[in-house]
């Protein structure tokens, strides 16, 4: 009899053990900025542009899957690999841009928390510091499993959007048609929102988090098949949640010809149209989404800084063994919360600048990932062949075209 009689176990239980990186990296893309994009997409164009979510889901599956594979095969995070393969200068430039972009994005998450709580009459001077302390304690005091469980639990808040979507009583036929039949009004606004949805689905911090977290989770090559399920599930759920946000706004705001500027506007505007509960659920979803992303962004930054500096650390490490890791986490959180609370901080400029920086940084990062995936010295038998390169290249080109188009439409106003 085999010594390891229980090795095979039940497949489902094994899947549960592997699940995490794909779900968290995917769902954290549905942060307040993402929810705002989906809300505007639904409010301004109804069900017509839902097909865009299918494309963004495919892009997520492709590149998050690659990040997970590289993490599992090499045992290293993305920034560590970039330093190893491209040297300290390129690695340092990517890291510097990533840190700045991540701080800006964390500002956006705290701004989302502030806006969400203000709907319920709670001042940002209470909600933002409280959120900063809570997310810091979560990572500083928790073990890897406790942190992962808390984050996955927090992710269930996205169910609020699904319920909210149902409560808006959408036209399901039109929604299905809009999802499966691509049509495109050739207006500047429509092009801008389509490219924003596609171009911002893949976030640099999401890619680096995905890879570092797969390493921290100690996933092994034999886990890759199950990890693929995790990645696909995370990406599909991300798309599904986006679908329900669009549907909720399309069935109410678009029907009544209302325009909104952000997700908090949508939550308020939904209340008289779809009922108070729907609006409240939308606001709760916004707060939860912001909390999740505000936890993951400093974590992603801390992983990346440690990988570059060469003092790789993990959530399970105590503070005395991983000072760089925890200090980075704390500094990113503190700076971001302070900026959001500063009375005269140019928050809008910071958020727009961050979006631009994220988009610009995405291009070299995707190219670096394709280069790393094709490096046989690093990837061994998991090296990406010609067919795989073609898929990554096509996806990269689509994303780059979206980023450039978004830049042009933004500049032209």
């Amino acid at each position, binding site marked *: 009899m085999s010594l390891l009689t229980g090795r095979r176990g*039940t497949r489902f239980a094994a899947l549960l053990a592997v699940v995490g990186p794909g779900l968290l990296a995917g769902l954290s893309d549905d942060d307040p900025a993402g929810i705002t994009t989906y809300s505007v997409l639904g409010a301004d164009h109804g069900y017509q542009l839902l097909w865009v979510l299918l494309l963004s889901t495919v892009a997520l599956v492709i590149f998050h899957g690659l990040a997970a594979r590289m993490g599992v095969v090499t*045992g290293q995070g993305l920034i560590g690999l970039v330093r190893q393969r491209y040297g300290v200068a390129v690695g340092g430039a990517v890291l510097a841009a990533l840190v700045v972009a991540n701080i800006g994005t964390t500002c956006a998450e705290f701004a989302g928390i502030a806006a969400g709580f203000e709907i319920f009459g709670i001042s940002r001077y209470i909600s933002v510091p409280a959120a900063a302390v809570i997310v810091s304690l979560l990572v500083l005091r928790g073990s890897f*499993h406790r942190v992962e469980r808390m984050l996955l639990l927090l992710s269930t808040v996205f169910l609020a959007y699904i319920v909210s979507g149902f409560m808006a009583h959408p036209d399901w036929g039109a929604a299905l048609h809009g999802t499966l039949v691509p049509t495109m009004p050739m207006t500047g606004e429509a092009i801008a929102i389509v490219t924003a949805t596609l171009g911002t689905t893949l976030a640099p911090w999401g890619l680096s988090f995905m890879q570092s977290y797969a390493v921290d989770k100690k996933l092994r090559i034999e886990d890759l098949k199950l990890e693929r399920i995790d990645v696909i599930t995370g990406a599909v759920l991300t798309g599904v949640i986006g679908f329900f946000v669009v549907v909720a706004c399309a069935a109410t705001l678009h029907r009544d010809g209302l325009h909104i500027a952000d997700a908090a506007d949508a939550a308020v505007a939904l209340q008289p149209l779809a009922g108070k509960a729907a609006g409240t659920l939308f606001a709760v979803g916004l707060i939860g989404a912001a909390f999740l992303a505000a936890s993951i962004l400093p974590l992603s930054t801390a992983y990346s800084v440690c990988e570059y500096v060469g*003092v790789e650390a993990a959530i399970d490490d105590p503070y005395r*063994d991983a000072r760089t890791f925890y200090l980075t986490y704390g500094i990113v959180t503190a700076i971001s919360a302070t900026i959001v609370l500063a009375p005269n901080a140019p928050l809008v400029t910071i958020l727009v600048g961050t979006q631009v920086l994220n988009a610009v940084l995405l291009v070299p990062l995707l190219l670096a990932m394709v280069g790393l995936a094709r490096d046989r010295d690093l990837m061994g038998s998991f090296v990406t062949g010609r067919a795989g390169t073609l898929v990554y290249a096509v996806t990269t080109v689509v994303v780059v075209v979206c980023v450039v188009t978004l830049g042009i439409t933004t500049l032209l106003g």
Partner: protein
Amino acid sequence: MRHACGVLLLTRLTGRNVLGPDGRVLGRLADLTVRLNRGSESHLVERLVVTRRHAAELVLPWTAVANFHSGQVVLGADDAAAHELEPDEILLGRDVLDTQIVDVVGQRLARVADVLLARRPDSRLECLGVEVGFSGVLRRLGLGRIAPAPGEDVVAWSDLHLTSDRGHLVQLATARAAVHQLDARSLAALVSRVDTDAAAEILSSREPGMAAEAVRASHPDVGERMLRAMPDVAAARIVDAMPTEHAAPWRQRLADNPALFGRRVLRSRVWPHRRHLIRRPPP
């Protein structure tokens, strides 16, 4: 460029122009190789890799180098060597620089900022060790003024295990590599810092008795993680080599269903807490 303290840095050697015997620029020095299983105690640079514009790279024996003093490498002969690496040969730039290593004495995982070399009286280059830490990175970024001189944080060749794919495999196959000289407790410290598959390979490369002692000296979660990553037969051989009173609980532990609860254990303690500090036995 020779450093003040007599140490040559790989990153300052690579990128230099390589000149042929006639003074013509052949290309740039891209990498150096060392063989880890040579008879002598020291690791000498064996070959140099030269990249050329619009032509395939050249691989030349170090003995072809006439001098490398004035910021250039001048060859006395340009007879190219075979391109294939010998089984015990690694590239310092590709397999060592900027990769992760395990410092088996300091018990830490670190990233290589530079490779330290020294010139011997016979003009051969000897590999001394690697510099780790951020000061080497700052120096390479041109911020040397705020970085301490090289040598602040150095790991000797005899005290490190390479984690790059080729470096790890070559060291496993090299009898005098650090991995084969460690006692059980040092071995336990090493395997707890590399990825699971590499740890399993390291244990498998030692005889079962030593591997069994290393498993017992490891944190039980780390030991379980490694044994589960091995083929059943290899894991059974190691457990069989344990004293009876230890073998029975290990068999029981490994027989438990790992699909959910066990796998949680496997993922934990990625870089273990420093509770098991090893005191090296006195010489």
